[in-house]
């Protein structure tokens, strides 16, 4: 059990002084943050603050990034997006990233299995019954909510232990948002390490253990959950300004 | 150190004049004239690609039509050399008007593809046309007389005439590029939406440029038919459309001197390495590949960039 105890202390995902650029213009400035194994950390911030850029930088999708991104103690700076994915980081991208020319089943089976212990199709279908119902439909025929379920489902299959969820509730009806919250809660119970980008602070506050506030590509605040009402009020005010 | 562009181009033009004066004493005049014909063709193509940003993959249609029309005019219609070449230019220009009107409705790769398709139509039309002599082309085209006095079958006489036309063409291209029209065309190339919003009828400017380019291509083809005294299917084949791209690319897309240098290199490779037989194609292909892979700005473009000036 000592190894496990150790890994509980060590963060699963560890960003140190991460900087990134879009072409010539700098988008991130020395971002540092940790996500503990099995923890859920939310990135908060206004539109254009750099939350999605952090997610892209972790996946190696920026053409230039510097600093350190360690996953389970392995440095990933210098690795290609593909190698990073194969280490076991799963991406649920912004706008869901469903391939419209592929069927639902093809989308589901697309990402290669990176580790043992991924969910079986049976379990996925139990979790997301609508995915099973629409297996033969084309990806671009799904509703936004169905696409979001599919985007999460296809990562659960791969055995990835860390999941980057970029705006999973954006543009979805409240009843679907409910369902996604339940999904994230059960993923948390299953021990997934989750980095969540969320505009909807109330949503984030319910599922997260810790919060990192981003502004102009920098970390401006860190909060540990559960939040007191004064903290909630101050974050809410910051986000709405 | 910066030089005024006008002075650099004046110096280049003087160098060019010196070359056309001196080279005929060292090199075959026929070869030099052939270079001039292809240089005019390449300059015409570069007007469209380099300054207009329009990649046509069918320019052999205009060069080839010019070649065939000049050959037909001189051989069958009793035209003098100059009349034949003017005849060729007018018809190529008219064809350019029609093709430009059609092709310019599309952009990018579709523009390239549509110009290729239209050029294929010209190829098959000429291949099948009775006057054009099928696979043999039109042979033994007479050079005739200039103004009824100067016998052009003398290589020196025709060389002087061609040189004057060629130098005139380079000045014309320089004028076009530096005229208000040329500025607008470059503006359209760099940002068409902006040019439209300022109020320019960009479609008309592009069409005028296309017709100019087609007419000058016809001039190149017509002169070629007169000096070499034949027109063949090669002139109108799609491979010739590819070769003119190669000339401009090797010299430097969007430079003034590049097309001339590129044409000279490709004609010299073709003629001086003729003893290599089919390996000439391998050499040409390698030049193509190396240019695309290693220096996409071409010879003149690369030199100009090193020196920080536009050549």
């Amino acid at each position, binding site marked *: 059990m000592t190894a496990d105890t150790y890994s509980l202390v060590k963060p699963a995902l560890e960003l140190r002084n991460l900087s990134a650029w879009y072409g010539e213009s700098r988008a991130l400035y020395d971002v540092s943050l940790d996500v503990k194994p099995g923890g859920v950390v939310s990135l908060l911030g206004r539109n254009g603050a750099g939350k999605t850029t952090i997610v892209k930088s972790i996946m190696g999708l920026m053409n230039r990034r510097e600093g350190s991104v360690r996953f389970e103690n392995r440095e990933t700076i210098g690795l290609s997006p593909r190698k990073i994915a194969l280490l076991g980081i799963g991406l649920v991208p912004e706008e869901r990233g469903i391939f419209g020319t592929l069927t639902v089943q093809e989308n589901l089976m697309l990402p290669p299995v990176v580790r043992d212990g991924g969910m079986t199709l049976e379990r996925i279908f139990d979790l997301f019954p609508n995915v099973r119902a629409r297996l033969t439909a084309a990806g671009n025929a799904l509703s936004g909510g169905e696409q979001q379920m599919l985007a999460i489902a296809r990562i659960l299959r791969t055995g990835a232990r860390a999941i980057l969820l970029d705006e999973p509730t954006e543009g979805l009806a409240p009843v679907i948002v409910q369902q996604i919250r339940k999904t994230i809660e059960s993923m948390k119970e299953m021990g997934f390490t989750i980095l969540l980008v969320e505009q909807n602070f109330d949503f984030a506050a319910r599922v997260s253990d810790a919060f990192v506030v981003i502004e102009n590509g920098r970390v401006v605040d860190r909060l540990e959950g559960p939040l007191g009402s004064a903290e909630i009020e101050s974050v809410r005010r910051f986000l709405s300004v | 150190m910066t030089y005024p562009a006008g002075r650099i181009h004046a110096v280049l033009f003087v160098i060019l004049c010196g070359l056309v004066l001196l080279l005929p004493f060292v090199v075959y005049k026929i070869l030099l004239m052939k270079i001039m014909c292809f240089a005019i063709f390449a300059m015409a193509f570069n007007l469209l690609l380099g300054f207009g940003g329009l990649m046509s993959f069918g320019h052999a249609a205009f060069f080839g039509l010019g070649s065939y029309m000049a050959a037909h005019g001189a051989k069958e219609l009793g035209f003098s050399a100059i009349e034949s070449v003017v005849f060729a230019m007018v018809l190529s220009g008219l064809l350019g008007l029609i093709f430009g009107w059609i092709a310019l409705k599309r952009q990018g790769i579709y523009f390239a593809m549509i110009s290729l398709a239209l050029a294929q*139509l010209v190829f098959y039309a000429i291949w099948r046309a009775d006057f054009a002599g099928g696979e043999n082309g039109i042979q033994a085209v007479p050079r005739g007389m200039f103004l009824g006095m100067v016998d052009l079958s003398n290589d020196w006489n025709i060389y002087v005439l061609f040189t004057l036309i060629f130098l005139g063409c380079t000045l014309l291209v320089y004028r076009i590029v530096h005229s208000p029209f040329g500025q607008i065309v470059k503006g359209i190339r760099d940002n068409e939406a902006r040019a439209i919003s300022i109020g320019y009828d960009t479609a008309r400017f592009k069409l005028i440029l296309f017709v100019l380019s087609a007419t000058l291509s016809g001039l190149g083809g017509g002169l070629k038919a007169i000096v070499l005294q034949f027109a063949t299917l090669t002139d109108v084949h799609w491979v010739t459309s590819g070769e003119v791209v190669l000339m401009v690319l090797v010299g430097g897309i969007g430079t003034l001197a590049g097309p001339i240098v590129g044409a000279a290199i490709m004609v010299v490779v073709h003629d001086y390495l003729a003893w290599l037989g089919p390996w000439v194609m391998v050499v040409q292909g390698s030049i193509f590949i190396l240019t695309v892979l290693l220096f996409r700005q071409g010879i003149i473009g690369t030199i100009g960039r090193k020196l920080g000036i536009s050549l």
Partner: protein
Amino acid sequence: MSFQLLAGQLVLGLINGSFYALLSLGLAIIFGILNIANFAHGAQYMFGAMLAWGLLEYAGIGYWYALPLVFLGAGLLGLLTEAIFIRRMYHVDPLYGILLTFGITLMMQGVFRNYYGVSGLPYSVPASLSGSWNLGVMYLPIYRVWVIVAAVVICFLTWYTIEKTRIGANLRAATENPTLAEAFGLNVPLLKAAAYAGGVGLAGLAGAFAAPVYSVNPMMGSEIVIVAFAVVVIGGMGSIKGAIIAGFSMGALEGLAKVFWPEFSAMVIYIVMVAVILYRPGVDIFGRKV
């Protein structure tokens, strides 16, 4: 005009159409997945025919063994070409891809012309497919029927592979959004190389089919490649199904044109191509966006 003439030209047209379809199929795959207009496709087709001829001439390997060997040989050529040249074109203007593959064409044609000249090399129809069927109205050479059937089967298999299999799904994903596909752990560079090799393999295979019907010579691909481009455009750039159907139908149309408008039959395809670009750009023949 007699029925014989019409039927005869239609069959001839369908044979040409089989080659158009096989070549356009490869071009469409390469264009769709790599965004490269592969002008070297005609030279790669020629390579396939020369390879089939060479296998027989130098190694005594006959037609039936040559077919798979040519597919593999041309595929290998495609892998090498992609690794050395094509992959350097992924991040530059597509114009340079056209120029580069044009250069490759000149090199390949030059090399083969040097060793084999321009006159045709003989390659006879395999014994098992020689002879013809008497249909009453016309004699139908068995080899030609075989070419049409084989082309239909190969086109179907290729379509099936791309539309219905796992590897096809990976290819389509890499086409639609290469960045995202890579972020899911797909090996996009490998998929592109495989697509190029597959397309070249198909071109080579078409060349092997062509060896007994057309003249085997170094320039044999230089006209048909332009037709194949026209067919790809007509079918909707990058559409697999569109390329197949446009290939067969343009062949048939050309055959009919030979009956009604013999002098200008070669122009028909280009007229259709111009019309398609003008009136239906960016749409495949089923009216779907590509």
